[in-house]
């Protein structure tokens, strides 16, 4: 058994780290302060292929698979968690929905510009009455003269305000509901989508989140992702993959917090000696390192499962659940050790602290992840629990 990563991944990681440290690190604080997406840096990142890392080269991607994608998310998040939301929403769910179930023609037309980063994607699932219970969506698509007309409002859409393409889930047959009556579409901004309220957020402020409104938006039948009626399956498959990378982004965030703790413990003196000499600080470092290494093993193994076409859904839930919790714990420990400095707006830790919280919430709250993991395990011994 050889667990070393092929060398191309080392160079890929180095390139991504260079892009993040040279292009994003210098502007991250200002982008957070002003709640502005750093578009200049995004252009450089797109040119280096960062918006299509996992996808086949045939469709403008890098062909680096899920393994390349978790490395991307880890390195992006290590420098700028808000950017991991922009990249994750774009690749991990918006473009991924097209990749998992789109036809060749649809991929050529829409996945290619997304992978090249010349167009930005958003994933439109959540509605006022349908978040973690995604089957409760109300957005409606009605067939009319050879195309579909979509009406409804999606909320909390990452990249919503500046996206060019939207992967959208809508009800096409209310009688069937999630089991055969929900369809996934790819919708162009030019088809008439409107941006509603832009959220003012506590964290991930350099990513932009908004309502996306569909008011009589006409979409060609050719823009159905996968098959009519099977959109719920497409979106759930997409979210399974997305969970791996929430874990990967959390890994990057936790790694960064650990580095900050070690650095501060080495330099800051309390009671006449560096903090690092305090045993309780050593315990925090050791505990956190153990968590981070465990998470790294899990995230990379799950990416390997994906790339080798093995079942991975349960592992993906654990990536998201434990990853987000470890990242929160890491920034919390970092705050503990930094004292008042941790709260200062002039020090990057408070940004990490604000940014970490979302990972426990989005792409299915951690409570939902726990329920699914437990039910999945119980099902194996014959215990079936209906919602």
């Amino acid at each position, binding site marked *: 058994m050889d667990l070393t990563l092929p*060398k191309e991944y080392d160079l*890929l990681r180095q390139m991504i780290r*260079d892009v993040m440290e*040279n292009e994003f690190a210098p502007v991250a604080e200002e982008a957070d302060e002003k709640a502005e997406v750093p578009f200049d840096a995004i252009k450089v990142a797109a*040119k*280096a292929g960062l918006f*299509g890392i996992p996808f086949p080269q045939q469709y403008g991607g890098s062909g680096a698979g899920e393994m*390349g994608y978790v490395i991307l998310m880890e390195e992006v998040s290590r420098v700028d968690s808000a950017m991991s939301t922009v990249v994750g929403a774009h690749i991990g769910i918006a473009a991924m929905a097209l990749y998992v179930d789109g036809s060749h023609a649809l991929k050529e037309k829409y996945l290619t510009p997304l992978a090249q980063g010349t167009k930005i994607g958003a994933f439109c699932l959540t509605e006022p009455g349908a978040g973690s219970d995604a089957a409760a969506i109300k957005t409606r698509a009605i067939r009319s003269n050879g195309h579909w007309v979509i009406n409804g409002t999606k909320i909390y859409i990452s990249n919503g305000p500046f996206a060019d393409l939207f992967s959208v889930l809508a009800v096409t047959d209310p009688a069937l509901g999630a089991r055969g009556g929900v369809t996934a579409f790819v919708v162009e901004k030019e088809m008439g989508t409107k941006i509603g309220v832009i959220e003012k957020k506590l964290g991930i402020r350099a990513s932009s989140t908004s309502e996306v409104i569909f008011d009589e938006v006409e979409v060609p039948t050719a823009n159905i992702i996968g098959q009519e009626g099977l959109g719920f399956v497409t979106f759930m498959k997409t979210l399974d993959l997305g969970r791996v990378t929430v874990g990967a982004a959390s890994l990057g965030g936790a790694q960064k917090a650990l580095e900050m703790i070690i650095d501060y413990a080495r330099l800051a003196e309390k009671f006449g000696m560096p903090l690092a000499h305090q045993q309780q600080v050593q315990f925090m470092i050791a505990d956190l390192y153990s968590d981070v290494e465990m998470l790294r093993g899990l995230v990379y193994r799950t990416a390997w499962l994906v790339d080798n076409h093995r079942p991975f859904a349960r592992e993906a839930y654990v990536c998201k659940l434990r990853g987000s919790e470890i990242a929160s714990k890491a920034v919390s420990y970092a705050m503990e050790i930094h004292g008042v400095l941790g709260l200062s707006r002039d020090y990057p830790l408070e940004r990490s602290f604000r940014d970490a919280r979302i990972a426990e919430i989005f792409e299915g709250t951690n409570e939902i992840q726990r329920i699914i993991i437990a039910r999945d395990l119980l099902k194996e011994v014959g215990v079936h629990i209906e919602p």
Partner: protein
Amino acid sequence: MRIVVCIKQIFDPETIKISRSQQAIDERGARKIMNPPDRWALDAALRFKEADPSIEVIALSLGEPEVEDVLREALALGCDRAILLSDAAIVKARTAGLAQIIAAAIKRLRNVQLVMTGHMALDTGSGTLGPRLAIELGDWPVLLSVDQLRLEHGHVTGLQYADEKYYDSSYPLPAVATVLQTPEHPRYPHGAEIINAYRVRNVEIWSSLALGVDPTALPAPTTGRQLRLPPARQMGFIVEGSPQEAAQTLVAMLRARRVI
């Protein structure tokens, strides 16, 4: 025409540690990278290729098989070919011998009009490869520590940096140029090119036999006798008084020490 860019693999200065004895470099855990000035040289060569697609850019390096990684990186950045000069005799070569081997490879390539490399290797602080190569290639002109390199009318032109000044220089091809690091960041390789550099493309390996170099006839390598840290710097002091008084005191001190 062909441009050869000579690339060195070095330890990332940020990852090496001095051993406790202070007599050696502790290489454990150190990462190996492309010598940064060479990266700028490569970037300049690739800009020439962008302006004139008939130009072929060839990356060349020398050493142990692991050096291949910097050549894969060069391929990912956009080089047409990458060649590693490597065998048991070659890896032992240093300085003068090294220039002879590289020059032999450049002659074997034919139609090489420009040889580029970084202005120095950050690990040894040496910048002699360029001039040594120019001699070995038959006294080609050499532009040392050059910025804003241009190719025009069969000449290579640029600003040479020496003694804290820049000088306009232009020489007819073929020539050698050693390139300065400038503030603009060189290009990033595209993700797909990184994957292809390892999964699709090849690094050619040339041995001394293929080059027609007799390893026993190479100049003796320079050898290191001892490695030590520079002495610790002494604390400075502050000259007190008003600016005029302080300046007078300072001048008096410098005169007393025969500095001025």
